[in-house]
């Protein structure tokens, strides 16, 4: 099991390059998949003053994908951004196998 912290940076421009003041951003939606992106669950919808979300107790897997997008105050959604990641098994070494030999 491992705890992760999802962080993000708010966009400062719109898709065609125009400026996007933070006051024009309504919220950010963050989802998480544990099956390679086939299914996502909502981690939360966050206001612009929140730029991180912890998720705890994730088991070891290379199947995780975080998805996020911003929505402006007009209700327009930005493109999804998918970020795959792996939770490695970095737990301590397993037990030795010890045997006794009588030479």
């Amino acid at each position, binding site marked *: 099991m491992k705890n992760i912290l999802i962080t993000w940076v708010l966009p400062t421009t719109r898709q065609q390059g125009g400026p996007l003041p933070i006051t024009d951003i309504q919220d950010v939606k963050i989802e*998480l*998949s*544990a*099956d*390679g992106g*086939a*299914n996502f*669950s909502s*981690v*939360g919808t966050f206001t612009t003053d929140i730029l991180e*979300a*912890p*998720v*705890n*107790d*994730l*088991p*070891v*897997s290379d*199947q*995780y994908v975080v998805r996020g997008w911003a929505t402006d105050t007009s209700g327009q959604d930005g493109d999804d951004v998918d970020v795959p990641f792996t*939770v490695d098994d970095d737990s301590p070494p397993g037990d030795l196998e010890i045997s006794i030999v009588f030479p």
Partner: protein
Amino acid sequence: MSVISRAYLLTAIMLFGAASADDITLNWTNPDQNEQCVDGGVYDNPGGTSIWQLIVDIPDPDQSITSYVIPDMKPGVYTYIATAYNDQQNRSRVSGSATKTVDIFSVIDERAYIVAKINGGFLLLVVGTVPLGTACNPTTEVNGMNAVPASQVTFTGAQDVVVVAKCG
């Protein structure tokens, strides 16, 4: 098959059933009166035969027992009747019947989830499928989902020993 007239049978006992989880509890009221049977003459109006299976015989000359629990019943519909008998083994008419249904608490949506924690609650993440009808643990519930055996899950994502699914 012949019909035998009997004398001084006990009055039929009353039977009430109640199902709890996979146990069935039978409660009854013991008789306090005898009744007498009379010869009804030729049996010329047959209608059929019912076969009953004896669950338990409870010797109780003091009439102190009025309840019996049948444990670990599998899902199904069960109908019970009972009889009392006196010290001469004269048996009463059968009681009224009590019918109880034991439902299986099982998977009704095949999506299987692992459970992670987020601020303020739990996050359920789809990681595979579990066969419909798989028995669920009714005492372990997270966000309306119940624990299912991980050994029954076909994983397509992260694996954990704790897996939940929608049950009913």
